[in-house]
C-alpha cells in the first residue's frame, strides 16, 4: 500500500520538481511497481479533472449585484416593482421547471411544489409529507423537505420554526442527504441545494446526522422552539438538531431504547466496503443489543467514571490521528469523569495498520500502550516491522518480549475480537451487512463516527453527565 509520501513524490514528479537522480529513481520504481503506476494514473486523472461550471441561475445574482451598484436615484417604488416582477418571474420559472422535471410517462412523483398559495416553495423528498395545518403554517409529518419561504411556520416533530429563509427540515436526518440527492438530481435547484447541504455536512454533520429531527438553516434565519421551550434564533450556517434517545450509561450491553441513527452524510463514499474516514453510510442502526466489552483493552480513567468513551481506531487512518488529539483534550477536560477504552480496528486495505495495532498491544503488555500510541500517531506514516521495533527501543521496552507479543496468537485474537465488536455494533445496510469506518466512538453506547469537532463529543458527554446527575 502506498503512503502519502509516495504520492507526494508522484505529485512532484508530475510537476517536474524532482532532481535528476530522484527523477530517475522514481522512474525505475515505476517500471517495477504496478501499484505505483496505478497511483500515477490516478494522480494524472485527478489533475485532469476539469471544472465544468454551470452558470445556470446566476444571471439573476449578477443582475442584482449590478443593480445594487447602481441604486436608483429617485423612485423606490420602481425598485420594488422590479423586485416583485423578478419574484413573479422566478415563480413562473419554478413552475415550469417543476413541469419539466417530471419525466414524461413516468410515475415519478413531482417533488417541486409551490406552497402557501405560491408564496413559498418546497422540494419534497421521497415519502415526505408536508401538510398545511393553517394559513401560513405547515407540518412535516415525515421525510425531508427543503423549504424556502418568508414568515412561514413549519413544525417537525418537537421542533417549531418560524422560517424566514431557506431550510432543509428532516424527520430522518440520517438519510437526509440521500433523500436530497435523489430528489434534486432532476431539478436545476437541486445542484444548488445539494451543494449547500454538502457544504454543511462537510463541517458539522454528526450531531445532525445522529439526531431524530434536524433543521439545516441554509440561508436567512428562523426562530425555533423545541418542545415549547424558550425560542432561539437559528441562523444561516447553523444546524438545529435533536439528539437520539438516551442509552444506558454503561460500556457493556448498552441497549438503545429505540433504533438510533448512525451518522451518514457522505453516501458517495459508500461504494467502498471499508472507509478510512469519517464517512459512514446513512443507515439506521439495527435495533438490538449493543455489546462492547472492556476485556484486555487499554483503558484510561477510573472504572467508576460516569462516562465511558470507547474508540475504535486504525493507526494508518489520518482521521484517527486527528481524533487521538481530541481524546487527549477530552481527558484534560473531564478528568475523572470520563474513562477511555481503546480498541483496535485495522482496516484491511491499510497494509501496516494490523502490525501497528499488534505492536501497540505488545507495548500494552509492558504498560507502555499510551506512549506507543503517541509515537504511532506522531508520524504521517506507519512504519514497518523494523520501525515498530525502533519505537519499542525508544520506549526502552524489553525487545524480545515485545517481539514475542507482536507475533503472539493472543494479540492477534484480541485484534480480531476488537474488529468483530466494531462490525457487530456498526450500522447495517438493508442486507444486514455492517457499514463502518474509523475512527468510530461509542460514548456510553451512543455512536459517533469520524474525526468530528470536539464540540460534538462534549455535547454528548455533557448530556450523559447531566442525565446521571438527575
Amino acid at each position, binding site marked *: 500500500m502506498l503512503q*502519502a509520501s509516495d504520492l507526494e513524490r508522484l505529485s512532484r514528479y508530475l510537476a517536474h520538481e524532482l532532481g535528476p537522480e530522484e527523477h530517475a529513481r522514481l522512474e525505475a520504481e515505476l517500471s517495477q511497481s504496478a501499484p505505483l503506476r496505478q497511483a500515477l494514473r490516478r494522480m494524472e486523472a485527478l489533475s485532469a479533472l476539469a471544472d465544468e461550471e454551470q452558470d445556470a441561475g446566476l444571471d439573476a445574482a449578477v443582475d442584482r449585484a449590478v443593480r445594487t451598484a447602481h441604486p436608483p436615484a429617485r423612485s423606490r417604488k420602481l425598485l420594488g416593482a422590479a423586485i416583485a416582477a423578478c419574484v413573479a418571474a422566478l415563480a413562473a420559472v419554478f413552475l415550469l421547471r417543476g413541469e419539466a422535471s417530471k419525466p414524461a410517462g413516468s410515475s415519478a412523483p413531482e417533488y417541486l411544489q409551490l406552497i402557501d398559495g405560491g408564496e413559498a416553495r418546497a422540494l419534497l423528498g421521497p415519502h415526505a409529507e408536508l401538510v398545511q395545518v393553517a394559513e401560513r403554517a405547515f407540518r412535516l409529518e415525515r421525510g425531508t423537505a427543503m423549504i424556502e419561504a418568508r414568515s412561514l411556520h413549519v413544525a417537525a416533530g418537537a421542533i417549531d420554526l418560524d422560517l424566514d429563509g431557506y431550510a432543509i427540515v428532516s424527520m430522518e436526518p440520517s438519510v437526509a442527504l440521500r433523500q436530497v440527492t435523489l430528489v434534486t438530481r432532476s431539478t436545476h435547484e437541486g445542484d444548488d441545494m445539494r451543494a449547500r447541504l454538502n457544504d454543511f455536512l462537510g463541517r458539522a454533520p454528526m450531531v445532525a446526522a445522529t439526531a431524530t429531527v434536524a433543521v439545516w438553516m441554509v440561508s436567512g434565519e428562523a426562530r425555533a422552539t423545541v418542545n415549547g421551550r424558550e425560542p432561539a434564533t437559528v441562523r444561516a450556517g447553523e444546524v438545529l438538531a435533536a439528539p437520539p434517545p438516551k442509552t444506558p450509561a454503561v460500556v457493556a450491553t448498552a441497549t438503545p431504547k429505540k433504533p438510533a441513527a448512525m451518522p451518514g452524510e457522505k453516501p458517495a463514499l459508500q461504494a467502498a466496503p471499508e472507509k478510512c474516514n469519517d464517512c459512514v453510510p446513512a443507515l*439506521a442502526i439495527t435495533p438490538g443489543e449493543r455489546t462492547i466489552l472492556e476485556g484486555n483493552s487499554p483503558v484510561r480513567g477510573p472504572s467508576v467514571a460516569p462516562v465511558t468513551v470507547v474508540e475504535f481506531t486504525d493507526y494508518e487512518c489520518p482521521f484517527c490521528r486527528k481524533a487521538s488529539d481530541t481524546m487527549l483534550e477530552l481527558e484534560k477536560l473531564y478528568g475523572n469523569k470520563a474513562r477511555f477504552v481503546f480498541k483496535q480496528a485495522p482496516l484491511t486495505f491499510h497494509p501496516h495498520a494490523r502490525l501497528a495495532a499488534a505492536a501497540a498491544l505488545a507495548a500494552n503488555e509492558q504498560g507502555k500502550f499510551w506512549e506507543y500510541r503517541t509515537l504511532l500517531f506522531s508520524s504521517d506514516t506507519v512504519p514497518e516491522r523494523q520501525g515498530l521495533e525502533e519505537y519499542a527501543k525508544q520506549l526502552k521496552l524489553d525487545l524480545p518480549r515485545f517481539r514475542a507479543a507482536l507475533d503472539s496468537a493472543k494479540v492477534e485474537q484480541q485484534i480480531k475480537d476488537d474488529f468483530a465488536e466494531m462490525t457487530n455494533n456498526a450500522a447495517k445496510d438493508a442486507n444486514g451487512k455492517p457499514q463502518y469506518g474509523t475512527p468510530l466512538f461509542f460514548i456510553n453506547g451512543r455512536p459517533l463516527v469520524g474525526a468530528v469537532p470536539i464540540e460534538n463529543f462534549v455535547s454528548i458527554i455533557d448530556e450523559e453527565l447531566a442525565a446521571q446527575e438527575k
Partner: protein
Amino acid sequence: MELDQATLARAQQGERTAQTAFLRRYAGPLRSLVRRLGSGDADDQLQELFLTLLQALPRFVPAGPARLTTWVFAVAHKQLLAKRRRPQLTLVPIEEGVSVADAGPALDVILSNKRLGLLLEEALAQLSEAHRRVFVLTQLHHQPMESVAEVEGVPLGTIKSRLHRARAELVLLLGPALDVPEGGRHAASK
C-alpha cells in the same frame, strides 16, 4: 476566455451592461470557489464578492503584470480569507424524539454519473482549509501558484508543498474512483 478590452474598459468606467458581462464571465467559477472555500451562506457571500469586484474593478490595470482572471481570483481569495470562520453549531436537546425511518433507496440509484464530482467535493471537504484552498485555486481554477502564495502570505515553496500534500490526500481518499474507465476520461461534473 478573457473579457475583451473594450468591454473591460467600459466596465471599469461603470457601464452597466459591461459590468454585467464582466460578472457573468466569472460568475460560475466564483460561485464554485465560494461554495468550496467560503463559509455560511454562499449566495450572500457571492453577492458581496460581486459588489467588491465592481467597486475594485476601476483599480485593475490592464497593462499591468496580472491577467484579469488572476486579479479576479486574487480579490476573491482575499475576501474569502478575511471572511472565513467556523460555523456555530446550535444544539438544542429535546426529550424523546420520533423514531427514525427506513434506510432509503439503494445506493446505486443515487450514485449516478455525477459520482466522481460528488466524491471530489466530499474529498475536498476532508482536506485542511489551507490544503483545500491551494488545490481548488491552482488545480480547479487554474490560478498561478505565485498569486496564491502572495495572497496567502507564504513562500512559493510552501504553496507547492501544500499542493503536493493535497493531491496525495485526494488520491488516497478517492482511490479507485479515479481509475479512468475504458474509452473515456473523467470530468468533474457538478
